[in-house]
């Protein structure tokens, strides 16, 4: 079994309707992470929540519009996350960004299950 390596989980809490240069912010963050070859990114929609504005946004509240919560998660080595933070800073006008240390095991095997860690895991 591959040994876990130290990594950082970056979570960005924004609203579905937040925009960056005309496109959804969460989508722009994922595209930027892809462009900067981060290990991966995942977006989770939240059915309800509130944040800095104090207004409760809920799926069942029609007035909420599309201000529903979106959480973007990125896990990568600490130095790569540190490098991504200034980029993120330019993109997120309002929202919340959190960091936590995690142990990570990256899997990328060929179909023959030859085993072996991904290049990222070795970094």
């Amino acid at each position, binding site marked *: 079994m591959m040994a876990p390596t130290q*990594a950082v*989980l970056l979570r960005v809490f924004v609203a579905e309707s937040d925009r960056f240069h005309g496109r959804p912010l969460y989508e722009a963050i*994922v595209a930027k992470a892809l462009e900067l070859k981060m290990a*991966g*990114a*995942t977006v989770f929609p939240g059915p309800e929540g509130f944040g800095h504005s104090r207004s409760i946004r809920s799926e069942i509240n029609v007035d909420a519009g599309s201000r529903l919560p979106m959480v973007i998660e990125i896990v990568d080595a600490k130095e790569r996350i540190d490098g991504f933070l200034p980029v993120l800073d330019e993109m997120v006008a309002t929202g919340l960004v959190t960091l936590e240390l995690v142990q990570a095991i990256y899997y990328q095997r060929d179909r023959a299950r030859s085993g072996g860690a991904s290049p990222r895991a070795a970094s």
Partner: protein
Amino acid sequence: MDLPHDAVLLRIFTSVSDRYDTDPLYGAIVAKARDMQLAGATVLRGTLGFGHSTKLHQPHLFPLAQDLPIVVEIVDAEDKINAFLPVLDEMMESGLVTLEKAKVLQYGRHRAGLTQRIKEHLLGHPHRSTQA
């Protein structure tokens, strides 16, 4: 079945299309966790993402692919999680597995000492969730 206060949160980042034999991988992981009597498992569905397991999951661009991100979360005692990791290792072809420390305040209906635990937590009981 009980959970200790100091536990581990195991998260498995995979995708809807990942398979274990013929079954969806996330379903197989949940079934295996149940077989091994782990405390529980929760499957979360992402709407967009990319990673080792897949190309960009983008429902708008690839409406037919349905290859969306899936995260399976399992919380249990460290030894139970450690026993599960080699089994999981056999099942994973691509994707990401993360481990972090977690404090358990309630499991099912059992929450004996919950108030005490919260009090200890607030009074600065050593909380190592951010230390791996």
